[in-house]
């Protein structure tokens, strides 16, 4: 059995978008399970159980899904990609928020940003959700440390 965890938008047609390339390759899908307890914002995790496959075929499936913009978070319980959250405290905007995001995007992808500025002279807070490949997580942490020192920002991480 092969288990694939996919992160899908919780809207009609999204599941079909994920299943079509698999069925077109003639691969047998044993079951599809919605992990609704892991629903966050408008995303839901769906676990697809497939028949046993050659390593190359599995790789092709993952590539095809990712080409369609689908996030494959786990393959057989091995985490490939994960969402991490950070709350950033400091002069987030004045220290060039665009540059901060660009630098984080070298290691992952900032997919959500929420900002609050209580007063022009006071420190602001931002919450970011970053989609990151597990192999690049350490690089992302190091980049956050660098930015933190350069811009006097405090990164409070969920990991």
């Amino acid at each position, binding site marked *: 059995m092969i288990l694939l965890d996919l992160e899908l938008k919780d809207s009609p047609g999204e599941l079909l978008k994920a299943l079509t390339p698999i069925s077109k390759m003639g691969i047998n899908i044993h079951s599809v399970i919605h992990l609704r307890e892991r629903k966050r914002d408008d995303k839901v995790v769906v676990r697809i159980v497939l028949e046993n496959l050659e390593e190359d075929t599995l790789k092709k499936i993952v590539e095809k899904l990712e080409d369609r913009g689908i996030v494959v978070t786990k393959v057989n319980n091995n985490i490939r990609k994960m969402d991490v*959250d950070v*709350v950033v*405290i400091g002069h987030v905007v004045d220290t060039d928020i665009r540059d901060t995001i660009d630098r984080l995007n070298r290691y992952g992808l900032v997919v959500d940003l*929420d900002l*609050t500025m*209580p007063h022009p002279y006071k*420190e602001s*807070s931002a919450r970011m959700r970053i989609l990151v490949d597990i192999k690049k997580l350490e690089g992302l942490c190091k980049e956050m440390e660098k930015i933190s020192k350069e811009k006097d920002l405090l990164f409070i991480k*969920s990991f």
Partner: protein
Amino acid sequence: MRVILVGFGVIGRGVISVIKKKREYLKKRYGMDVKIVAICDSSGAAIDENGLDLDLALEVKKRRGKISEYPGKGVTLEATEVIRSVDGDVLIEVTPTNIEDGEPARTYIIEGFKSGKHVITANKGPLALYFQELMSYAKRYNRIFRYEASVGGAMPIINLARETLAGNEIIEIKGILNGTTNYILTKMEREKLDFDTVLKEAQELGIAETNPYQDISGLDTAAKIVILANSIMNMNVTIKDVKIEGITRITPEALTMANKGGYTIKLVGEVKRNKLEVCPKLIPLDDPLNVKGSLNVAKLYTDLAKEVIVVGRGAGSIETSSAILSDLIHTYLQTSKG
């Protein structure tokens, strides 16, 4: 069992109150007759090899502030001299914590071993700075050394990991080990108040100390992390090896942001191979580490039992003394066997 108590502040008085309260229970349950043969504070000591009157000792300390004024038995001897000269089985060391150099507690503990006493301490300073040295003295003089109260107050963690979870490899420990900072963050989150306001209120309530630096800077948690790393995970580290970030920059807006994403912010201490860290972390709202108020919590990741979580009161004189009492009972049971 003859006990020398060094340190007669809040914790020391708590230890005496608990021993007083449990005297009959200890006799019945364990056949243990506890005699406090000396109590030391900064003024000197009260010494009676037949056992001090504990009510009188508490009364003298309350009324005169100095144990050396204990009628007929009060002396102005230094604690080190008392430890050396008074015949006792166990030294309970509960002087104020000094994270800078661990003194005078370090000297008291070493003198305790040298003069043939088992030692129980609640003191983080010497453990965080001189763990290996103190252990080597305990070994050299073949004495028991217990320090459950130094981490998490009444919350069992050191003895839990070493005795109850014996056979398990402890892979990681993660927890909230400082009640003051947890109280401040909880209050800031609930009432949307800023850090300085909540700190001031916590000081007025006696939850935070007049000088709260060690708590809010993360230093207190770091000392505890070091004790856990050395005693449970067989590491050889000191407080200088811990990466530390405190909670002074946390704002109510940051807490609101965290809440919107399904998290809260907690000051978390973490120890695993290649990682010793104290910093504010995002903790999912439904995670067992999300304990409120001044509670402490620790999550131990083990190879066999997997995750084990303990929650308890991290401070308070009676609560902390309960951990000291359990160490005292353990010492008695170990030594009365042979």
